């Protein structure tokens, strides 16, 4: 090696270096591999996902709507004779109410048998319509206790009540009194962060593309077409 380089070619300029540099420069300037961001478009988020209103908008007054007319409950119930105080089934009116409240299967466990504009408390006490938590507390004592202290139920507004108002949501703003379990909701869009990979154990891996490296409108076929 040393003998050959020392022999004939030591002074000859390496012209191929110049050629390589020129070609390299030309290739780089032509930008043959343009940067393509792996980030695809934002996932649309439905407005319901950021809606802060309670899931239910109960009427907190004893009114009943028929067509365009609004009645108080007593408007009808005063003229309808009370036949069976243990009734549990709506015969002609209130057919939309399906009572699925566990072992609580009678209307008059909650509604007052003689004054339909109020609820009924223990021993026939009248509970005003806008205080439903007092009614629920008849059976759901521990939950009512937690609600009073704020560990159960929704709170909105300010945590510091000296700086603003605070709204404690009442029972029926989340729970349907005739069907109390909290309703299932459609989940908001799942995460698509770059950091996470496809969960190996899940069956829907083929239809799910968390990285969103290729969205459907780009050159690769959508991942859902794979299986």
């Amino acid at each position, binding site marked *: 090696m040393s*003998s050959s380089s*020392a022999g004939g070619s030591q*002074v000859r*300029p390496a*012209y191929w*270096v*110049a*050629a390589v*540099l*020129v070609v*390299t*420069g*030309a290739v*780089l*300037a032509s*930008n043959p591999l343009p940067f393509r*961001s792996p*980030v*695809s*478009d*934002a*996932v649309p*988020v439905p407005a319901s*996902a*950021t809606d*802060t209103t309670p899931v239910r908008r109960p009427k907190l007054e004893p009114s009943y709507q028929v067509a365009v007319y609004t009645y108080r409950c007593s408007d009808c119930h005063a003229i309808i004779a009370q036949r069976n105080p243990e009734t549990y089934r709506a015969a002609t009116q209130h057919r939309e109410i399906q009572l699925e409240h566990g072992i609580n299967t009678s209307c008059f466990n909650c509604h007052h048998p003689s004054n339909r504009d109020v609820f009924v408390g223990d021993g026939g006490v009248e509970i005003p319509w806008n205080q439903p938590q007092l009614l629920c507390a008849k059976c759901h004592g*521990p*939950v009512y206790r*937690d609600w009073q*202290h*704020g*560990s*159960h139920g*929704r*709170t*909105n*507004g*300010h*945590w510091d009540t000296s*700086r*603003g108002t605070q709204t404690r949501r009442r029972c029926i703003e*989340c729970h349907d009194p005739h069907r109390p*379990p*909290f*309703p*299932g*909701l*459609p*989940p*908001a*869009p*799942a*995460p698509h*962060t*770059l950091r*996470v990979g496809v*969960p190996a154990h*899940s069956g*829907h891996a083929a239809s*799910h593309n968390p990285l969103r490296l290729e969205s459907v409108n780009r050159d690769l076929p959508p991942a859902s077409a794979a299986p």
Partner: protein
Amino acid sequence: MSDPHAQRPEDKSAVPSDQTTWTRRRFLSRSVVALAGMSAVAGAMSPLRHLDPQDLPSLDEFLQKHYKEMTPQDKEQVFARITQSVQTRFGVDATVSDPPPLEDVEFVYGLNLSRCIGCRRCVHACVEENNQSRAPEIQYIRVLEMEKGSINVESSEHHYDPPLVPNPDKYYMPVQCHQCAKPPCVKVCPVEATWQEPDGITVIDYDWCIGCRYCEAACPYWARRFNFAEPQIPSEELNPEVGYLSNRPRNKGVMEKCTFCLHRVRQGRLPACLEVCPTGSRKFGNVRDPASEVAYILRHKRVYVLKEDVGTVPRFFYYFDERGSRYREPMVEKSGAQEGTG
């Protein structure tokens, strides 16, 4: 060994003659090489032509001090500059706030695992409130779908996407920054760009962060996020009420994290994730106030701290109700189930 030594005299005699005589051939060949070299350098630098001068920091930005070292006058200037940059980037008139920590306040979060249904409303309310990037997607809250009877986060799933939640066979555990009392993320930061405020909130000076991501690696809850790319936020979705330490728009290359909505909670409001929670699973307040919701929870509820063994002393507490929540009862297939059993 003796060969090179013997050639030295020959080399020495040849070199001076090369350096002194500039022939035309020699000049041209050297010029070609030099030109090629320069063109190669120019080619290598050519991506710089895509650089937008707007992206370069101004001298003021470059010389900006650490948040803790700023005087009120400095802050005024910096906030004016942030307002200006938000105007340039998004065309939105933002108001920059910097509420100080409140006296005798320590913020604590409670989350009722018996009630959370995994609907992810909190995730998106947080994104909307705190101006996280929509693409690439940055979210502070991760809702884990957990196996019932297990607290193993390794077997959890956060890409669940059924038509309706909750799945009666699972429970859901949202994870976000736990605002630890002994935050490992603060400990590892080499430039002190992140620190714990007196009210317990760990914050970041986004202008001081160098993007080394040590904090992301140190966090046992994966609560910190990195802006790998320029954050993209639609102008109409930008929250114009921005806080210097919380939700002002970030730049590419910096870390960000949940701050319990610092700009809201220091003004007495509740965090955005709590406001949107349809189930009321989320609880927030001042733990030093014995009448607060969170104080009641800590005293009376069964409280669970995620990864207690790592010694981070979180200010984020999961708790349970006495009974399991009612959603575990099948709601939709009730009639079908009765037929099956009867």
